[in-house]
């Protein structure tokens, strides 16, 4: 059955010609520096020159991120997490863009940016508290300039824009990057963020991971034009990059951040990629998606792609790959143990950090609740 309501034939993912799949008429090619077969190619506008060590680093980042993600998925299956939003397939989009940021840049993620968090130095264990249900955030955003995850779709794009406006006011030269999905591009907040960013020439990069789906709805249900082209209507540039090509994502995001830092205002990057798994662990993609689609995208796997390049060009040897494998096992183990050891919050924590200044009603309710709890401790049969 067709996923797209209007077409009779199955929907094929749109990607650059090099990916072998069809392009929509009039759509420019996406920026690509590494083919799905792992061949290095050049692009007239975006280039990159990385040391072997940097290239190996990108591979390591992607493998460890995928391993962390897989571990979280199985922890959810084992009942240790209430929910998990997997990034499977989006590693290049996240590592490429995350590694493009400078420490003084500020990142505003959605709820799926585990790879970006990794690049920012956030301990992956911290990402799990919210999904386990022990907190609503779990890290200090200012420690790594990595903001809290945002569940309400699109909200963070405005926060990012405001933060960027603040950077301009301060005369600083850092930039902001705001992540969001193809579905989020429909939200009013995102349109308003584009407006503000353009009007105030804010140093913000809007980074849309177009993973083709917003839960069950294909991108066609959100937009009739490619998402990167929307920027034009707001007066700033947009570019589409092969989101499964970590080199291209790195190059394009670096350029976009530089564009923002150098006072040229916002830019929209659309990373054209694919959500290989379910939307979250509560979702059932078999209801709306064809297996063939996923299979097609598996050929474009971002990790295999970089690996074949590293192998072909002799940039990494077996020992390196084995080492990364070992490291990823260790990460999995550490994460598993750390999650299991994560204590449930103290019920009294419900009353913590509601106000910075304190509040009489909270104090009153806290005292009442403490007395109520204590009344069970006293009762002879207990509770």
């Amino acid at each position, binding site marked *: 059955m067709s996923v797209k*309501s209007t077409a009779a034939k199955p929907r094929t993912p749109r990607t650059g010609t090099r990916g072998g799949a069809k392009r929509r008429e009039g759509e420019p090619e996406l920026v690509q520096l590494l083919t799905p077969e792992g061949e290095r190619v050049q692009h007239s506008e975006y280039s990159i020159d990385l040391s072997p060590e940097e290239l190996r680093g990108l591979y390591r980042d992607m493998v460890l991120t995928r391993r962390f993600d897989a571990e979280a998925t199985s922890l959810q299956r084992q009942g240790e997490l209430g929910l998990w939003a997997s990034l499977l397939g989006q590693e290049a989009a996240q590592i490429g863009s995350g590694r493009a940021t400078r420490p003084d840049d500020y990142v505003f993620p959605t709820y799926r940016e585990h790879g970006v968090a990794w690049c920012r130095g956030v301990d992956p264990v911290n990402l799990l508290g919210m999904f386990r249900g*022990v907190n609503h955030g779990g890290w200090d955003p200012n420690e790594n300039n990595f903001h809290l995850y945002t569940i309400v779709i699109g909200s963070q794009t405005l926060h990012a824009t405001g933060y960027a406006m603040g950077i301009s006011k301060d005369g600083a030269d850092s930039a902001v990057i705001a992540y969001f999905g193809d579905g989020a591009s429909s939200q009013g907040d995102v349109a308003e963020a584009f407006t503000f960013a353009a009007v105030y020439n804010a140093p913000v990069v809007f980074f849309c991971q177009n993973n083709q789906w917003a*839960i069950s709805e294909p991108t066609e249900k959100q937009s009739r034009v490619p998402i990167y082209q929307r920027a034009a209507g707001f007066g700033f540039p947009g570019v589409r990059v092969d989101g499964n090509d970590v080199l291209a994502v790195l190059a394009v995001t670096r350029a976009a951040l530089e564009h923002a830092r150098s006072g040229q205002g916002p830019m929209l990057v659309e990373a054209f990629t694919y959500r290989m798994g379910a939307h979250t662990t509560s979702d059932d993609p078999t209801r709306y998606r064809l297996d063939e689609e996923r299979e097609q995208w598996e050929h474009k796997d971002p990790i295999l792609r970089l690996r074949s390049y590293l192998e072909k060009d002799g940039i990494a040897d077996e020992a390196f790959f084995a080492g990364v494998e070992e490291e990823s096992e260790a990460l999995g183990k550490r994460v598993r143990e750390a999650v299991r050891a994560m204590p449930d919050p103290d*019920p009294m924590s419900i009353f913590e950090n509601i106000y910075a200044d304190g509040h009489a009603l909270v104090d009153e309710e806290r005292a009442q609740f403490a007395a109520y709890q204590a009344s069970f401790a006293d009762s002879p049969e207990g509770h």
Partner: protein
Amino acid sequence: MATMTIAKALNEALRKSLETDPKVVLMGEDIGKLGGVFRITDGLHKDFGEQRVIDTPLAESGIVGTAIGLALRGYRPVVEIQFDGFVFPAYDQIVTQLAKMHARALGKIKLPVVIRIPYGGGIGAVEHHSESPEAYFAHTAGLKVVSPSTPQDAYWMLQQAIDSDDPVIFLEPKRRYWDKGEVDTDGIPAPLHKARTAREGTDLTLAAYGPMVKVCLEAAAAAAEEGRSLEVVDLRSLSPLDFDAVQASVEKTRRLVVVHEAPVQLGMGAEIAARITERCFYHLEAPVLRVGGFHAPYPPARVEEEYLPGLDRVLDAVDRSLAF
């Protein structure tokens, strides 16, 4: 009589409305092929097509705003908001536009829009998936606000809401979606805005709606074992609210405890306490007490059971009321 879950009863009600009135259209995120994240619209897209069951862009303000336009054109849109916490992007459209247009047009236009919201906690969800936003809506004139607590009510109240020429905020107690009960699909349903006595009693009235009705019935059963007779009133409709029914019950029992998940501060309980105190001052043996959420954000899942009013907190309030 058929036995079905609340989810199934809602699904059947939507099906019935789509069948009987060609102007009824469903709108929402993922309500098509997926059948909604709670599967309330399961099978409807297949049977009625995408002109009747509309998968919308991910934009709540857009969904409600266009539903208003469709209603102006003679349709009866039934909107699904995916989770309680995501109604706020649409809040402006609901409160500033939907609620007021009928009055502004001197009654010449009608806005038969139903906004279905799965609401409340208790399912171990992440942030923004467990909120109880009813007071925001009940505070706004022009909106009707209802919440069923049984499959029977789910089935009929949703059809009645769709039939209503006024905008209705239809709050679905999501943690009760899978509770089963008997549904009489042939009989004559109770009026939409009438409260229901869910259990008769003489010592104290528990007033609740949606997810808390079950908790109150359990509390009444537990209290019965200690020789206390509690009456449980299922309010069903929050705006308008059937104060007459609550008053009648309180005149009989002389005590009232209002229970809801939403924070106590300025919640439905505050309104009920104030009105019932006015109406029943000389009948009351104790102040009206409220049991509800704290003045705190809905907490992470692992402590939600402490936050949500459960049996013990309801019985504690019963004790306090009876001690006066």
